[in-house]
């Protein structure tokens, strides 16, 4: 089998090391490894991180293959340094049965770029009426542990209570898209001074905060785990901080775009900046960065949301919500919290790999650099700086908000279960990566 010797990489803690990978696991760690290997990666000057795990991504297959497929999404993930992704359930058909989740997982395994662990819908068809067969999905080969109606809020309080209680049975967690539907009917952008000027219907922060407040209290009452998707406001951070101080089992994620971009970008009505939850104020961006640094927010999750050109090249009201983000995530995180001195690469490893794997109950990511662990790594060069362009995208869709921005960093290599998916900054071909 293949063996890879990584030489001279800097661990997240800073010290340089060699790592030998063989048969999919780490076999040696230390400086000056002399054992032979079928390939060697000279990694001095590069930082080695555990393979990134995205707890919130949209692969669009089945049903929306014009935007993305499991293959193209996996490739986008790999070039971004990811070795595992949790695709959301808003496919067509919806991922609300064992059959669909097993299919999506199998596609991921066959393509081989990343480990695909589908998220199951909370309600049948995402309709918010009836619980989906959570037990069947948990017991399936896909071993679903994260359940979400993302895209839609589970707004009925009774249904949310039942869902929180029921998933306890299966060691599951409900990942809530917190958005009160009645307060956000027709909403287009953050509600504030700017939305009034631009004549775009507002999406008030309270519509997110009030749902989170309700959900943490429900989670406390029934003793269940709650995960809050894409936190976007300073007020939400305050609620989560309060909940954690009370011992409530709540975890939270923030997207890279909410760490970097503000609503000012909406002024020209360029729908590349249209996303749900919307871009907010600078105060919110700063609060989110501080929360990620102090652990109030546990992880970074991309909410990678591909859309075809025609869904974005139109008037703002008509445009779809969403941004692609797998390829740019690490660079944006570096720019927003590492280069600003708030977090170290050790924190990046925690928030982008160890913690998301833990929340999603994904095995093999808890001690990444230990001998015997699955070999999932990304080699990253933080020292470069380049203008982000469409040639850095590998998914099927081009709706990135960063086109034209200067971003730091570059993924040089990604190793998934001991096999390389990216080398010398470029993806390996599907035939080389596929596992048949």
């Amino acid at each position, binding site marked *: 089998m293949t063996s890879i010797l990584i030489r001279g990489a800097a661990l997240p803690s800073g010290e340089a090391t060699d790592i030998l990978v063989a048969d999919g696991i780490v076999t040696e760690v230390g400086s000056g490894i002399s054992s032979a290997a079928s390939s060697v990666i000279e990694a001095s000057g590069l930082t080695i991180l555990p393979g990134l795990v995205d707890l919130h991504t949209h692969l669009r297959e089945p049903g929306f293959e014009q935007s993305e497929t499991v293959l193209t999404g996996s490739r986008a993930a790999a070039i971004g340094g990811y070795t595992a992704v949790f695709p959301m359930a808003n496919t067509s058909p919806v991922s609300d049965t064992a059959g669909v989740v097993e299919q999506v997982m199998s596609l991921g395994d066959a393509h081989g770029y990343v480990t695909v662990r589908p998220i199951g819908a909370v309600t049948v068809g995402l309709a918010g009426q009836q619980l989906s067969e959570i037990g069947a999905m948990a017991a399936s080969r896909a071993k679903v542990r994260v359940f979400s109606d993302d895209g839609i809020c589970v707004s009925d309080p009774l249904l949310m209570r039942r869902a929180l209680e029921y998933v306890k049975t299966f060691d599951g967690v409900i990942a809530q898209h917190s958005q009160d539907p009645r307060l956000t009917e027709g909403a*287009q952008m953050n*509600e*504030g*001074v*700017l*939305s*009034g*000027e*631009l*004549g*775009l219907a*507002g999406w*008030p922060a309270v519509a997110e905060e009030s749902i989170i407040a309700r959900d943490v209290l429900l989670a406390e009452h029934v003793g269940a785990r709650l995960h809050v998707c894409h936190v976007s406001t300073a007020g939400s951070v305050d609620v989560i901080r309060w909940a954690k101080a009370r011992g409530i089992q709540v975890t939270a994620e923030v997207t890279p775009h909410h760490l970097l971009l503000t609503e000012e970008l909406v002024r*020209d*009505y*360029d*729908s590349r900046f249209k996303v749900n939850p919307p871009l907010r104020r600078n105060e919110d961006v700063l609060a989110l960065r501080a929360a990620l640094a102090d652990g109030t927010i546990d992880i970074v999750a991309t909410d990678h949301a591909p859309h075809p050109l*025609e869904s974005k*090249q*139109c*008037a*703002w*009201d*008509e445009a779809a919500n969403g941004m692609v983000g797998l390829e740019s995530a690490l660079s944006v995180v570096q720019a927003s919290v590492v280069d600003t001195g708030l977090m170290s690469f050790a924190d990046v490893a925690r928030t982008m790999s160890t913690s998301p794997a833990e929340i999603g109950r994904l095995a093999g990511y808890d001690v990444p650099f230990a001998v015997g662990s699955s070999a999932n790594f990304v080699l990253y060069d933080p020292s470069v700086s380049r203008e982000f362009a469409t040639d850095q995208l590998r998914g099927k869709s081009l709706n990135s908000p960063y086109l034209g921005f200067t971003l730091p960093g570059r993924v040089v290599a990604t190793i998934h279960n001991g096999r390389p998916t990216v080398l010398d900054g470029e993806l390996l071909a599907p035939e080389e990566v596929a596992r048949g």
Partner: protein
Amino acid sequence: MIHLLSTKDLSRDEAVQILDVAEDMADVATREVKKLPALRGKTVVNLFFEDSTRTRISFEAAAKRLSADVISVSAKGSSVSKGESLKDTAQTLAAIGADAVVIRHSSSGAPRVLANSGWIDAAVVNAGDGTHEHPTQALLDAFTMRKRIHGAASRGKDLDGIAVTIVGDVLHSRVARSNAWLLTTLGATVTFVAPATLLPVGIGEWPVETSYDLDEAIDAGPDVIMMLRIQSERMHAAFFPTAREYSREWGLDDERLSRLPAASLVMHPGPMNRGLEISANAADSPRSTVLEQVANGVSIRMAVLYLVLSGGAK
């Protein structure tokens, strides 16, 4: 001026220039041959994704009086209503050589998207976009005020010191927004009067005063009072309880009309809900400028088309 997308972008001098050019255009309407050859050979397309007979006719008349060729595309019955996108429609117009596109759209920002897109090379004039702006309406309102106040000596003047009160659904009104920016740029003071539900969040940051009390606003003796149209759909979304309560609190009824200073102008961008936000007497009184607003609309739109279509090659 390359495009006219919003009044927020206009400087005081640019705004006064538009009003002054409109003065000359107004003269043309008094002649026997109501035409000027200034835009001969130019093609102006009226692209109306939202129904509007009055504004569309006004722009058509304006373009024709400047001898331009006019093509009017309205949403109903065209491929636009069948789902043809803004982009496809724009590219069709570019292919037939439109020099200016006058666009009305129900999405805020659509004219800006069109102007920034690179799909067409034409000048873009915003004829109303969603709840964002309606710049030519504000310009004709300012022109009407200036003309009534300064008469024949209007040329070169702004609206310094004029107090304008705008009453009604500010939250959903593109006319209110365009007027707020333009009138304050021209030196007027603007006061919005409405229930709190119909004032946008963050209005404290705008260069306007606000009040919930129409009677108090009338007793302050504004030079101009402008009534905005109330839509009954807003009742169903709980912006106010009933039409009757709205009318009682914020309608310009005969009693309030009588307390208004004799010289005050009564304005309404139309169409009016007689009996709801404005009484029939108020609408028909000699202080009402509603009819001359229509005539002034053509002059303003002629001025705007002239200014975006003449001038050096870009």
